[in-house]
């Protein structure tokens, strides 16, 4: 089932990617092409097959809830586009 321009707009909003009308026009046939191609999976009989989430048999380990590395606030903030008073700074959210 092909996706509509409205759906693509909605997906772009969910993905937080601003998209111009020209970009959207270009993307729409590409997405439909790719989705049409992956839809061939419908032919495969998967009744009773468990979805595979991990390729190796592995129990997820729990670790102790302790700080192993820390006190590097300024090193971490050095990469921030904007930092103030030891925090990440973002545009005003509440007026």
């Amino acid at each position, binding site marked *: 089932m092909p*996706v509509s321009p409205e*759906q*693509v707009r909605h*997906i*772009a*909003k*969910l*993905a*937080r*990617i*601003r*998209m111009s009308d020209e970009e959207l026009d270009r*993307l729409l046939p*590409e*997405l439909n*092409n*790719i*989705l049409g*191609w*992956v*839809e*061939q*999976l*419908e032919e*495969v009989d*998967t009744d009773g*097959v*468990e*979805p*595979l*989430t*991990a*390729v*190796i048999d*592995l129990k*997820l*380990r729990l*670790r102790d809830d302790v700080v192993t590395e820390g006190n*590097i606030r300024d*090193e*971490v903030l*050095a*990469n*921030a*586009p*904007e930092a103030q008073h030891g925090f*990440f700074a*973002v*545009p*005003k*959210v509440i007026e």
Partner: protein
Amino acid sequence: MTELISKTIAELRDGFRSGEFRAREIAESFNAAVAAARTLNAYTVETPEDARSAADAADKARGSGELLPLAGIPLGIKDLFATHGVDTTAGSRILKGFRPPYESTVSGNLRKAGAGMLGKLNMDEFAMGSSNETSTYGPVISPWRRKGSNVGLTPGGSSGGSACAVAAQIAPGATGTDTGGSIRQPAAFAGICGIKPTYGRCSRWGIVAFASSLDQAGPMAKSVRDCAILLEAMAGFDPKDSTSLDLPVPNWEASLSGDLRGKRVGIPKEYRIEGVPLEIDALWDRGIEWLKDAGATPVEISLPHTKYALPTYYIIAPAEASSNLARYDGVRYGLRVTGSDGLDGMYSATRSEGFGAEVKRRIMIGTYVLSAGFYDAYFTKAQKVRALIKRDFRKAFEQCDVILTPTAPSAAFGIGETTDPLAMYLNDVFAVPASLAGLPAMSVPGGVDDQGLPLGLHLIGKELDEQGVLNAGLAIEERAQFTARPEKWW
């Protein structure tokens, strides 16, 4: 000094140990070669000081006896690996200027083994691509050219900078990562070796995440032996990666043997696909003969879900990518573009300008297949087919010990020649099934096509049987006698 850059890692290591040359000479030879090859666009950052200081430490240690396994060896590091204090951008504009305050486990392991770093290697943006054309730094240009032609060729991707660097002798070896062929396809295009180990062998910690259930690091180098040497240093249990395998690292180099007597080599009939050049099928047949000559018995096997591997991959990988790449929001690192409408506007403006076209395409696909109403039809369905693909391999390995196929359906193509996304995805048709099943797989050069471009043979092994893959690779290497080298034009 040109003779030093043409040596394998094993030769450099042994020559350094025997006192034939100093580590400093090795580092300076490669530093000079790197600086003289900028036309290839293989490196995004050059770190000659790093290579030099590791070399000096190696030279100093040589006097005192105890030497680290990679003492004296400088390496190229794919830009996907976080390197302490050195720009790490995953080939993306959105990570511009990011200098990690930490080192990835794999690159840290190489450092602990004594290796120095020549620089960071160019790659497709977030490892999404098969030609290195999606990098924000522009494409890497392969050192190889078609006979009598000046057309720029791609080195493959996404580890294209790594493949180019090894083939052009501006690194003796390099790290790569492989999500759906990103080590093996460029290795084949560049006429070098590259191995993706079993999922979980190499820690993913500190590697910029693309599709976490598939991503694996591995080495790319001139020879099978060099791959074994590097993989031993890269692999190992890491508590910081929840999917890291808690197993000892085998002595892959010491156990190398091209004697395949008693081994059965599976030849999957579904990998004979239409549209693949005859030369590739012919090389595959030669590969079968080489393995027979090494003592192995070929057996025809069936992997019935092969044709569904690529569509499965192009649901699962974008889905995981859309989730992993949600972190690039302009708040904590990298690019920030301030939009007109507050915080939300900043997110979407930053992501719109920070990501390239292919990355956006995959985030959109991934977001769609995970969205309400479509999740089961696409994502759960793909996970079920993935289970069947894994089951195919399990059954096949009851009849054989290792599987032989071609690595890629073509030789290297020209930059700008493949513009359709789907056509680009088909590059990984032979590589993706092993990724979906988490199996170790390797590309070894087998020969050249009639244009003089390298072609690779692909070996897939049982879970944890990197040794079987390396040994079959060695048997091919010994018989293929691949000595073709790109003629220096850069």
